[in-house]
């Protein structure tokens, strides 16, 4: 009997440990494969030039630039919106009210919507409805915003990453001890003063964590932007909000599926994947640095 129990225990430990090993192995294999095949193709020209000869030569600079611009625009849109939503939900709204319940339900559903559906939503809502409306109202019907462009792609990604930011911000607001709020209230602070001087400084780190998670999620998504702004091939950079743009993830998708000679693009493909990983990592790293800077400054004052 006891030997049997010991065997079950051993079996369970081994099985769960094996699962962990498998995950580790998968990460190593994926990263290793990309690194081995992608690293030789990396060069200054690759990251600074435009694609040439049916994307079998040249570089991917427009796609790198487009990805960074897209993610920054998305962050600029999603962080204020998400933080404001979370603050209202957690600090201002009555917790048992129907509206709060509905907003939370909507956010949960939003988090479960497949990315391609966001793409179609972006096309219908942003490109056609919002963009078309702007054109009709301000551009006399001339085509300006009623087309896929970086602005609509960024906003579509912002909708996709909104739940992430809201949840992370709410989490950080919840983490501010009640005793801080009570202390401030008991000295006659108004709700805004408690927010401004006690709650927000304490939770700003968590909000930036939300931004980091949003960047990680948004930087790799292809489906939401393929109808709303990403271009197959553009030798120039987006200069205005209503320009189209190249994007690394989409570029990878295009090269694997649409290229006239997939075999010839394979080395470039590998290098592009490596660059996408590096760019995502770089954006994340920057955000982490910004967060620790802000935290340190808050601790000093």
């Amino acid at each position: 009997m006891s030997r049997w129990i010991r065997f079950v225990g051993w079996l369970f430990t081994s099985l769960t440990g094996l699962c962990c090993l498998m995950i580790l192995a998968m990460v190593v294999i994926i990263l290793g494969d990309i690194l081995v095949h992608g690293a030789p193709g990396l060069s200054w020209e690759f990251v600074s030039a435009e694609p040439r000869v049916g994307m079998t030569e040249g570089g991917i600079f427009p796609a790198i630039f487009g990805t960074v611009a897209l993610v920054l625009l998305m962050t600029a849109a999603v962080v204020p919106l998400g933080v404001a939503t979370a603050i209202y939900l957690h600090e201002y709204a009555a917790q048992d009210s129907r509206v709060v319940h509905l907003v939370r339900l909507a956010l949960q559903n939003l988090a479960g919507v497949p990315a391609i559906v966001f793409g179609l939503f972006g096309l219908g809502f942003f490109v056609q409805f919002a963009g078309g409306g702007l054109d009709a109202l301000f551009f006399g019907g001339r085509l300006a915003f009623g087309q896929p462009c970086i602005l609509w792609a960024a906003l579509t990604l912002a909708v996709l990453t909104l739940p992430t930011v809201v949840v992370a911000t709410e989490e950080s607001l919840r983490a501010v001890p009640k005793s801080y709020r009570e202390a401030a209230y008991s000295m006659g602070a108004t709700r805004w003063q408690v927010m401004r001087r006690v709650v927000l400084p304490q939770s700003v780190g968590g909000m930036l964590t939300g931004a980091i998670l949003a960047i990680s999620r948004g930087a790799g998504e292809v489906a939401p932007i393929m109808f709303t702004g990403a271009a197959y091939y553009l030798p120039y950079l987006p200069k205005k909000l209503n320009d189209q743009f190249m994007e690394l993830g989409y570029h990878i998708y295009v090269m694997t599926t649409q290229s006239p000679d997939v075999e010839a693009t394979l080395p470039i493909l590998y290098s592009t994947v490596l660059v996408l990983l590096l760019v995502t990592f770089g954006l994340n790293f920057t955000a982490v640095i910004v967060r620790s800077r802000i935290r340190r400054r808050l601790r000093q004052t």
Partner: protein
Amino acid sequence: MSTSAAASASAVGIESKIRARGLNAWYGVFHALKGITLEIPARRVTSVIGPSGCGKSTLLRCLNRMNDTIRSFRAEGELLLDGADILRETDLVRLRKRVGMVFQRPNPFPLSVFENVAYGPRIHGERNRGRLAEIVERSLAATGLWAELRDRLAENALALSAEQQQRLCISRLLAVGPEVLLMDEPCSALDPVATRRVEELMQELKRDYTIVIVTHNMQQAARASDNCGFMWLGELKEFDETGTIFTRPKDPQTEGYVTGRFG
């Protein structure tokens, strides 16, 4: 002054700061305060004792409306601060500026010592750096912290000892310029030596402030307060001078509690 209690208070020359008559309070359907009537004298230490859940903290939190954040909470009756109705006060900022609170666990903000004390004056509009420094020094001096911390004003308040933190919280409150200090078991997180120092501090502060302290430490009430009320299941069973409560209680339950037979 119509009640006999008020008459007797004024007869011995003690003005009352806070007066409650028929004060009732509920959390939802739970009747937490049942017809509380008492007079809290100005510039004295008034303690409220009683077993856990008897309503003493609720009573304290009525005095500066800290229970307003609890949605199911409701209070009725008469509760006057210098004759003005607390329960119908619409300007809670003004009320809490006059009636501040010290909590059970020291709760300094995770900021520097200076910023903690300057917080109150700042939210009430004081911007002048010189005047802020003056207020901070005065408030820290009032709790004896200035001598200890004058060179550590930039240090994070969370690095202080629990007792220093609690005195810092009192300083932070004094900086707002209150008239009444509400203390909700201010020493329950402190060791006996620290507790004594806070009690001594209360004796000094009562020259300028009206202090109401809730405690379930009976020795503390006996040592540190001038007047004392005993609460039991939401009722104020007895309210008198502290000496009387502890030596000649009129209510049998009060006697049972102060002699340690229950509670």
